[in-house]
């Protein structure tokens, strides 16, 4: 694999050159938190960030996205007929995405990009995006990526992985998309590959050693769905949940959405908006019936989806990359690691026949 060395003094210049070929997004400090925003000319990703508050999923999958437009003006020939709105899918680059967040797109891809149906909005945006990952030298105390199918130096999902070695970034070029981007940025000084590889390996081991919390997921597959579903622990875990939906909004792998029409005079649009399984309306039938009519059922859905249904449906592990955001931002300290432990260790009191 090709490794490139970037002198930090030359980093801003490269970013500036990329502005002509890409729309740039990177972590920027906004009051107390970092979030991914469009980088204006002269702006660079903030090197002090540990991770952003919201995941960068909105760069590919906006919180609110227009799908169709139409006219309700009956004097027009094509009134009431929907026309697709194609967003700006010019090349964009996300610089400084953490490996867990880059990996999350691959988990979500199994939902939006299937043999049967392709979600054109997601697929086009994803294809237009180049991901420049930034390895984590100092993971947070809530990170458990190493046991959630990712890791502080994980490469899957990134087109390039940057490693901060002090005065330099050493970049591992992973895909042709990444290689092309580096050419356009003018970052082409090859790092002596033995040396670079050794340096990266040392930093990687040090970072992984800092991650002390873990989840065990090995037994989730073999559990019976109906046993887990009927487990007695849900009530206890859900006791303090206020169904605020924060966990689903900050999550890089939560993908559920609602579709709504909005009309102003005779001009209308159909749009989709992030939705959350934590909300009562999510499953509310027009008849008044609601199969998830209390918060325990809604919390159970969220964790069963991530840790059991997804595992069984796609056979690609859990629908979680261990970024720890839901743990950090849940107002009542509900911890997915504890839920995962309870599920993984669950034994039904009596084997139902």
């Amino acid at each position, binding site marked *: 694999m090709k490794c490139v060395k970037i002198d930090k003094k030359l980093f801003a210049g490269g970013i500036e050159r990329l502005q002509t070929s890409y729309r740039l997004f990177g972590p920027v400090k906004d009051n107390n938190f970092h979030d991914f925003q469009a980088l204006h000319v002269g702006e660079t990703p903030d090197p002090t960030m540990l991770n952003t508050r919201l995941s960068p999923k909105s760069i590919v999958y906006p919180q609110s996205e227009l*799908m*169709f437009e*139409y006219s*309700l003006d009956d004097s027009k020939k094509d*009134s*009431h*007929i*929907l026309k*697709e709105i194609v967003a700006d899918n010019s090349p964009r680059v996300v610089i400084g995405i953490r490996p867990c967040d880059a990996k999350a797109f691959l988990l979500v891809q199994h*939902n*939006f990009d*299937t043999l*049967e*149906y*392709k*979600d*054109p909005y997601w*697929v*086009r945006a994803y294809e237009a995006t180049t991901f420049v990952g930034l390895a984590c030298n100092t993971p947070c105390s809530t990170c458990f990526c190493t046991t959630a199918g990712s890791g502080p130096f994980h490469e899957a999902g990134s087109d390039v992985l940057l490693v901060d070695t002090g005065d330099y970034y050493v970049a591992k070029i992973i895909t042709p998309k990444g290689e092309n981007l580096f050419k356009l940025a003018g970052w082409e000084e090859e790092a002596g590959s033995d040396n670079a590889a050794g340096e990266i390996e040392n930093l990687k081991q040090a970072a992984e050693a800092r991650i002390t919390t873990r989840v065990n997921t090995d037994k989730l597959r073999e559990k019976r*769905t*109906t046993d887990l*579903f009927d487990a007695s622990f849900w009530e206890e875990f859900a006791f303090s949940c206020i169904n605020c939906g924060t966990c689903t909004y900050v999550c890089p792998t939560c*993908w*559920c*959405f*609602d*579709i*709504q*029409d909005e*009309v102003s005079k005779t001009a*209308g649009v*159909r749009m*989709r908006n992030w*939705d959350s*399984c934590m909300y009562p309306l*999510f*499953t*509310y*039938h*027009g*008849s008044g*019936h609601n*199969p*998830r009519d209390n918060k325990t*059922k809604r919390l159970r*859905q969220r964790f*069963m*989806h991530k840790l*059991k*249904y*997804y595992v*069984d*449906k796609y056979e690609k592990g859990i629908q979680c990359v261990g970024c720890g955001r839901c743990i950090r931002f849940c107002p009542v300290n509900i911890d997915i690691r504890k839920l995962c432990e309870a599920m993984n260790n669950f034994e039904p009191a009596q084997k139902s026949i």
Partner: protein
Amino acid sequence: MQNPYLPYPVRIDDIITETEDKNLKTFKLVFLNPADEENFSFQAGQFAELSIAGKGEIPIGIASSPTEKGFLAFTVNKVGLVTTHLHNMKVGDIMGVRGPFGNWYPWDLMENKNVVIIGGGFAFTTLRSSIVYMLDPANRSKFKDIHVIYGARTPGMLLYGDELSAWEKRDDINMHITVDATDDPDWKYNIGFVPTITDQKAPAGDENTYAIVCGPPIMIKFTQPVLDKLQYDHDHIIMSLEMRMKCGIGICGRCNIGKEYVCKDGPVFTLGQLNNMPKEY
């Protein structure tokens, strides 16, 4: 890239008020572009998303049969935002249809078998599609005995009245129409709840017999013990489920029961399958 969220434009060709309370209407829709009809090739038991610009979309079972060409029919109960707006629309109005979506009743498995259709209330829509499909001259010989047990609260609440009478007269289908109660002296069919009539009229279960059950939860709840008593295997009891839906294609994440999306992996499941799924519907 094909956009699975884009509805085919259709025109409302006819509107039939089905029930005495006027809460159920059948809409006949015709594609504006004939090529779209070709693409919309479906099987009895599938559903579609009806789209009304400015209001939204609703999943509705296809009530017309694949053997009926030139139009699609949907029977819609007035409940909320979109269905109420649809009930106020007129012949000639333009709307949209997306689909067909979901799986269908297992027509290949049911070949050379007896088929017992058990329906209640307005869930009879895809069952109508199924009956018309099976009775089509090209298909009738593929199935053995056909029984239909269909009930509504009152005679005026039965859907598709003219067709029910026509089927009653045929000798290649056994109709058991029933109402919960009536004071109509001319009522010549059954009186009683669907589970009771099932007990009295349905053939016993065996490996050559399938039951398709669609209706309100209460009917399903009380019909199941009857089918158990008649010794229907749970793999031979076929049901169609309902969940709140948006995308209809297994992407928006709304309609799952366990790992199955009702819109894509369903809405048709056997009772055998449902026994191994969470009871969350």
